[in-house]
């Protein structure tokens, strides 16, 4: 779908006429019940589904983490066998990164990016739906391995040659390779979709430097994905060919160099780290100004530091390989580059602090989580700086110190940012306020649990407990009260407190759904365009496409500067502004019709993948479904037959959505 802006003349047809319906199957017009969700192309519904799927996998990955902590609570744990433990930590990381973190960021991006830029949907709604369903299929393929002979056991980094058919003989790695390829297609399609959306579909007046920071960060992330996903895709295809068809890309006896995999993996893997964290940076860059009643301090610096983190992020991959036997010059270069990336990251932290400086801080749950991110990410960032010192890293890499580091960054940073987003935007999405009291329990239990779980890991790692080990022994655990047994037990107890904290969120969600308070239209005195519409927004988002004059447009429609008193004077109420938009609704709004094909095509891709494991007949079935779905997609009528649409009005510019999706 594209927005076509055109002068209202008689000669230009607004949209293709409904008579051109050549498709084999009728396009669904209006769907109800479960169909409303399965065949939708509405970015908001897709966003919600992304969120639900990601949350489900967050719970799966969380249970895996709890099992890991149960196993490690005491020396010589026997809850899990070596084999099961190896599968567990592989799938914990894979699930959390690919099936929780990325889709959850995708949920926020899908839902709010079009709203923040004043658009009615994303550029390619059907492709958007395809992304979602491919992710679901990829997640199912990945986790199906648990029931079909065991999950992948090579670590999420899946280093060659340990990932080869000889060393990992079960089908686990095959499922992993295929699941990730499918999920990778989803991300790649999604990223192109969002880039086009941001570049082409911003409301009139919204120059790039008037875009909300969340949208900016999502844009940077999509560029990271576009350039890094092809690299991992190549690596995954090579590994697939080796495992399933006898190729020898990583077979040392055939002359392969196993370090090739590491380079390919981390050229993807390091930008991936920023793919995970930048959306949360974006979220709190919305939340902190809102609840500080001040614009983001140094908006251009935050934007450009985000972009430069993204750019430099492509040049630091080998810092994951300081112990892998690179030459000293390479090590030195990557060591210095890694230190360099700390600078723009530090800039962001200072800007957030200075945003709050001189503000009027309102401690809602969303704000608490945002502040949690600032503090916890700072700790994780500083332990990251100690890792950039390559000689020191050769002592601490692959110990629990690095596990502590990236959980402070990813849990303290990314996850706290996402939770901040939940509390901030819940009223927008569902029209109801999450309970602040339960939110407070949720926040504090998560803070305590998170620090109890990952804090002690700093000590354990510095004192030499290596990671990825299904047992640890007393013999290497030191003496005294604070031996490894003490800290491992603290970490394990902490992990359950953390889990209870997350449980409070789920309780909050259920409670809010049942008996939550209806949200006012502008509960937070917010700043950006997504609040200039009803909650939840109508299918077409905006009754009238807003014209943007300011960064933080919505705020500036509500407040006027009182330069004499050096303060802001309220001139309008958020709710009135929304009602005014409703009153001045555009006459001709066209939305794309739902479609059967995205979910069918995604299913076909999944079957095709299973065919690579289970043989040609299944592959043929998968291919047939893909072919059928592709033809269906292409030949599908671009609008539903009896969709109601009015001719364009003649009064100057009219914005319409041509549903060519």
């Amino acid at each position: 779908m594209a927005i076509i802006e055109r002068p209202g003349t008689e000669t230009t047809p607004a949209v293709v006429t409904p008579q051109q319906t050549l498709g084999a199957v009728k396009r669904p017009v209006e769907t109800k019940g479960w169909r409303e969700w399965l065949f939708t192309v509405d970015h908001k519904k897709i966003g919600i589904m992304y969120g639900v799927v990601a949350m489900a996998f967050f719970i799966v990955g969380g249970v895996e983490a709890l099992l890991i902590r149960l196993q490690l609570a005491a020396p010589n744990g026997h809850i899990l066998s070596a084999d099961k433990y190896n599968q567990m930590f592989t799938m914990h990381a894979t699930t959390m990164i690919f099936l929780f973190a990325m889709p959850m960021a995708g949920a926020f991006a899908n839902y709010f990016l079009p709203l923040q830029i004043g658009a009615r949907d994303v550029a390619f709604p059907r492709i958007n739906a395809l992304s979602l369903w491919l992710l679901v299929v990829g997640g199912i393929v990945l986790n199906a391995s648990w029931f079909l002979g065991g999950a992948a056991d090579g670590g999420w980094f899946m280093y060659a040659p340990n990932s080869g058919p000889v060393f990992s003989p079960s089908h686990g790695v095959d499922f992993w390779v295929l699941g990730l390829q499918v999920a990778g297609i989803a991300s790649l399609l999604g990223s192109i979709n969002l880039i086009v959306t941001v570049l082409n579909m911003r409301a009139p007046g919204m120059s790039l430097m008037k875009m909300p920071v969340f949208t900016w960060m999502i844009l940077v992330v999509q560029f990271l994905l576009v350039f890094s996903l092809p690299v991992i895709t190549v690596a995954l295809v090579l590994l697939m060919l080796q495992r399933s068809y006898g190729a020898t890309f990583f077979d040392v006896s055939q002359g392969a160099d196993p370090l090739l995999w590491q380079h390919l993996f981390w050229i993807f893997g390091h930008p991936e780290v920023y793919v995970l964290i930048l959306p949360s940076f974006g979220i709190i860059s919305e939340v902190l100004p809102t609840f500080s009643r001040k614009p983001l301090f140094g908006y251009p610096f935050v934007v450009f530091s985000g972009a430069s983190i993204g750019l430099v992020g492509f040049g630091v991959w080998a810092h994951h390989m300081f112990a892998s036997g690179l030459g000293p010059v390479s090590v030195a270069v990557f060591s210095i580059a890694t230190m360099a990336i700390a600078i723009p990251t530090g800039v962001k932290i200072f800007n957030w602090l200075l945003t709050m400086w001189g503000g009027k801080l309102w401690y809602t749950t969303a704000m608490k989580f945002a502040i949690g991110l600032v503090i916890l990410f700072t700790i994780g960032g500083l332990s990251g700086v100690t890792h950039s010192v390559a000689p020191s890293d050769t002592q601490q890499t692959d110990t629990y110190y690095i596990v502590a580091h990236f959980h402070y960054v990813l849990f303290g940073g990314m996850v706290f940012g996402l939770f901040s987003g939940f509390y901030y935007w819940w009223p927008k999405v569902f029209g109801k306020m999450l309970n602040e009291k339960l939110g407070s329990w949720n926040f504090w239990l998560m803070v305590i649990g998170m620090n109890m779980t990952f804090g002690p890991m700093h000590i354990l790692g510095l004192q030499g407990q290596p990671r990825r080990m299904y047992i640890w022994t007393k013999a290497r655990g030191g003496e005294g009260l604070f031996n490894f047994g003490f800290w491992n037990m603290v970490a394990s107890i902490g992990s359950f407190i953390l889990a209870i904290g997350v449980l409070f969120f789920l309780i909050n969600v259920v409670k809010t759904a049942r008996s939550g308070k209806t949200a006012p239209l502008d509960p937070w005195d917010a700043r950006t365009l997504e609040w200039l519409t009803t909650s939840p927004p109508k299918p077409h988002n905006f009754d009238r496409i807003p014209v943007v004059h300011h960064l933080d447009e919505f705020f500036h429609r509500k407040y006027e500067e009182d330069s004499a008193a050096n303060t802001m004077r309220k001139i309008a109420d958020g709710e009135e502004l929304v009602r005014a938009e409703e009153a001045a609704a555009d006459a001709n709004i066209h939305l794309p019709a739902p479609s059967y094909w995205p979910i069918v095509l995604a299913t076909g891709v999944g079957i095709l993948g299973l065919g690579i494991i289970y043989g040609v007949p299944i592959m043929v079935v998968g291919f047939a479904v893909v072919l059928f779905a592709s033809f269906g997609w292409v030949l599908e009528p671009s609008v539903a037959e009896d969709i109601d649409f009015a001719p364009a009005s003649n009064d100057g510019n009219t914005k319409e959505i041509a549903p060519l999706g």
Partner: protein
Amino acid sequence: MDTVSHVKNSRRRIVATLAGVAGTIALAGCAQNAPQDTFVPKGDNAQKIDTLQKVVFPIAGLVGVLVVALAIYIFIKFRDKGQDIPAQSHGKPTVEIILTIVPALILTVVGVFTFRTIMDLAKTTDTQMVINVTGQQWWWEYDYPAQTDQGITQPIITSGQLVIPVGTNVLLRETSRDVIHSYWIPALNGKKDAVPGRIHLLRLQADKPGIYAGQCTEFCGLSHANMRMEAIALSKEDFAKWVAGQQKGYTSPDEGTKAKEGETVFINQCSRCHQVNGIKDANGKAIISAPDENVYAGAAPNLSHLMSRTTFAGAMFDLVNQKCRDDVWKAKSDEFGAKYLTGVTTDCLNQKNLRAWLRNAPAMKPMYSDPTKLAKTGGKYRGMPNLGLSEDDIDKVVAYLSTLK
């Protein structure tokens, strides 16, 4: 004026006290004598790293404390007390530039020292001794090429425990026979991966005699957690004794002893994979093991002088009982050499561990040794299979192995 400075002083005192308390808690929270502590260097390579990290960690800690303190100040000072909505200032470029330059300067200084240390630790021109280290699932093999100036007149092959002379710049030449492993003795240096098809170099040097623990730190499959090792540093005299012991010829047990019967069982059951240098069959023909026919990596530990090491099976198990273990591990450095060189005496031998291993090795250490699951390796084991020895055979083999001093 006085009161102001007084307040300032007391503030300073509070800050200093808090910092002191925090530091004490951090240190007190550590385990004592953790064998793999990364902040207890025992040789000059690890010392170089330590010197660097003892600067970097406090700087990071200090920055952290300052930022968090600033944050808490802001949280309290600017909380909503009913003040007006502030003017919408969008930032001050000067502040931004200062906040960019200051960390950049700190990192530049850190960068310079980092660079120097990286180069120092990559040096190979001062090498005095070379040892080839080969990783395989899930144990380490050490191969000492002949180096007459170190008293090694013929090659020595051993496993599990790396023995080096103190004060000597040892260069490990690491590689692997299967997947990637990583060699790490934290007291002596950082880690370096052992990658199949490549040779990576790692400097090691120990100041004092002692036993230094390590673990494989690159995930290497099923029993990664059980792939351990120790470095044993001996004084130069003791090292010469150790070398002499390793180069000692083979003595077959006396006829009629249990050990002699054990030798026969060993020849039938074990010597297909495990080499014992000098062992001969009934016809007087030297037995050369052929592990590559049975084991995927193509190697199994050389057992010629098994009783000179205090651990076995990838250093996963103690070959000595707890008392003798403590004796060695807790020995003072000037007594350590003599204690280690005593080897595993009959009193010290950990019968329980060794017998359990001989009874059913895969039950002791997870390995790929189920014959029905070896299709991808052409029937070859990864690790040691269950040999199905009778208790009687186990008695005999234990008696025989005890003679391999």
